[in-house]
């Protein structure tokens, strides 16, 4: 079996909280706490979870923007976890990122041309006098045409959607194999969002890209992604093909996320079973013992408070970290029954 295009093995990213040179840190934030995943050639993998679950940190760690505490990241089977600056530059030819906030990810003091020429120049891809033409061509690819008309403008002259297109063009400049898209459409208006998603899908075919799509929007996941990985409090709780997870979630957290996502059809919305989630995500500094989800889980039992569930394999390459994953379809009933007991 060939190695996956990108593989993350048991990755941990911990940050000291507070403290400094003089004071000792007050604790450790376990933003990513033992996550493994893999991305195959040509695949669109969604990384889903609530705010603060570590999905952005995981994305940044894959790009080498934060240093992992332990674990490994492999690109085409070779380790890229702790690269020297020169090697990291080579790695960034293949793995790029689109950031969340199009108003923050373009340097306000640089023209579009200066922004797009940077990767071309740094990687020596295009001779200096052809950079203008190459940058214009990139803009054409992302639907800002004619590209040459936009080259000498500054970011503040563009709308959010246009800015995100420029960011996509910048990521494409090095002709990467993987693009990590961190909430790439969540800051955009709904109507613009659909256009950008369409563009991303078009580019995937055009340039044979693989995406790691970090999002909290399950609508986006369903329409774009082949596979889903669900994170909760720094851990992977469920993973599998999109269709199969949307049909039968094997972790109560996934069910809750699905239940919480807005649906267009009111009939369908009424028919589905709700698993309400109480409270907020606990602090990543002191994760709960046992299963991290148990304080908010509607079906938590004694075992959940004591033992951390392993990530178990199921049919079709699915994995789930719940003690009751095998009994999946019956949860909703159990949850309802439990609620009625309380009432």
């Amino acid at each position: 079996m060939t190695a996956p295009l990108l593989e993350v093995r048991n990755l941990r990213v911990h940050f000291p909280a507070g403290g400094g040179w003089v004071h000792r840190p007050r604790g450790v934030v376990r933003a990513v706490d033992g996550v493994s995943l893999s991305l195959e050639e040509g695949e669109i993998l969604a990384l889903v979870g609530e705010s603060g679950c570590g999905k952005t940190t995981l994305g940044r760690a894959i790009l080498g923007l934060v240093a992992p505490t332990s674990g490994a990241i492999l690109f085409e089977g070779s380790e890229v976890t702790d690269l020297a600056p020169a090697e990291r530059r080579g790695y960034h030819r293949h793995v790029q990122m689109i950031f969340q906030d199009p108003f923050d990810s373009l340097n306000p003091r640089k023209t579009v041309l200066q922004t797009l020429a940077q990767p071309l120049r740094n990687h020596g891809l295009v001779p200096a006098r052809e950079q203008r033409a190459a940058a214009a061509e990139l803009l054409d690819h992302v639907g800002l045409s004619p590209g040459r008309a936009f080259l000498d403008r500054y970011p503040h002259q563009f709308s959010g959607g246009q800015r995100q297109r420029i960011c996509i063009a910048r990521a494409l400049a090095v002709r990467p194999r993987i693009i990590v898209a961190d909430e790439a459409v969540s800051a955009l208006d709904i109507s613009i969002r659909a256009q950008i998603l369409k563009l991303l899908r078009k580019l995937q075919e055009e340039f044979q890209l693989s995406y790691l799509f970090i999002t909290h929007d399950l609508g986006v996941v369903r329409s774009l992604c082949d596979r889903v990985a669900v994170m909760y409090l720094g851990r992977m709780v469920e993973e599998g093909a999109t269709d199969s997870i949307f049909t039968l979630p094997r972790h109560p957290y996934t069910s809750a996320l699905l239940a919480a996502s807005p649906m267009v059809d009111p009939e369908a919305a009424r028919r589905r079973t709700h698993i309400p989630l109480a409270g907020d995500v606990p602090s990543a500094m002191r994760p709960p013992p046992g299963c991290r989800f148990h304080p908010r889980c509607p079906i938590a039992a004694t075992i959940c408070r004591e033992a951390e569930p392993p990530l178990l394999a199921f049919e079709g390459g699915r994995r789930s970290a719940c003690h009751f994953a095998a009994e999946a379809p019956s949860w909703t009933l159990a949850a309802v029954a439990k609620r009625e007991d309380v009432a």
Partner: protein
Amino acid sequence: MSAPAPGTPAAGWVEEPPRPSLWRIFALNRMSVLGLAVLGCLLVLAVFGDAIVPFDPEKIRAGPRMASPGAVHLMGTDDLGRDVFSRVLAGLRISLIVGLSAAAVSTGIGIVVGSFAGYFGRLIDDLLMRLTEVFLVIPRFFLAIMLVAFFGAHIVNIILAIALLSWPEIARIVRAEFLSLRTRQFVDAARIAGCGVLVLMFVEILPNALAPVVVAGTLQVGQAMLLEAGLSYLGLGDPSQVSLGIMLQQAQQIMRSAWWTTAFPGLVIFLAVLSLNLVGDGLNDVLSPRSRGR
């Protein structure tokens, strides 16, 4: 990480209103415009002083001793019969040179120290900021006196001494800007576009951090001129140069009998520093985040 809930009206189509021109904002503050006009006149006088002045500023007995201001000697003469108007223009030039060079050197040091402290953080930040604080807590004027007394009252030494005392302010401003700018996504974006650390610091971040530095740097020109005048007044000025401070010092003895020997140099220092401060205020209006926009 935190993202707006789906459906929240987000920043999709924010059409920015056409931005008012920078001059328009600056002109809103009438005092700054006045300051700019005065500063402009002073600069012209200082640069073209040689062509304007009626007498050699150093020439003894260019006229009668301690003549009061009149048609021939606009600002009178001093106790050696030197023309005060010619000396004021020459002194203004030296004072401005000292002020501008000291502020430039100080801003340069401040930018380098502040950039490294703010970009790298942690140990480097701690070390550089403790060093900065050491310079901040030493009484400036006394250290200047010591430095000049020790290394000699040459104009270059005076400039360096003043710069050495002024950079901490700039360093702290630059550091604060870097601390907030280094976490911006465009910095990460440049990093994965293959930029090295120095490019990130000085091409990506620094241009966005310059606005408050320009303001502080402008104010420092005035402060440096005052510091130079103070040093000169205490007899630590460069004796080979005519600066406004040196004129004040030399006229100490005859202040009562010939007021014009101190009044005019003093007035010019006052005008120069005041106009620099007013211009600094105006620049602050232009460059402050309120009007800067993203």
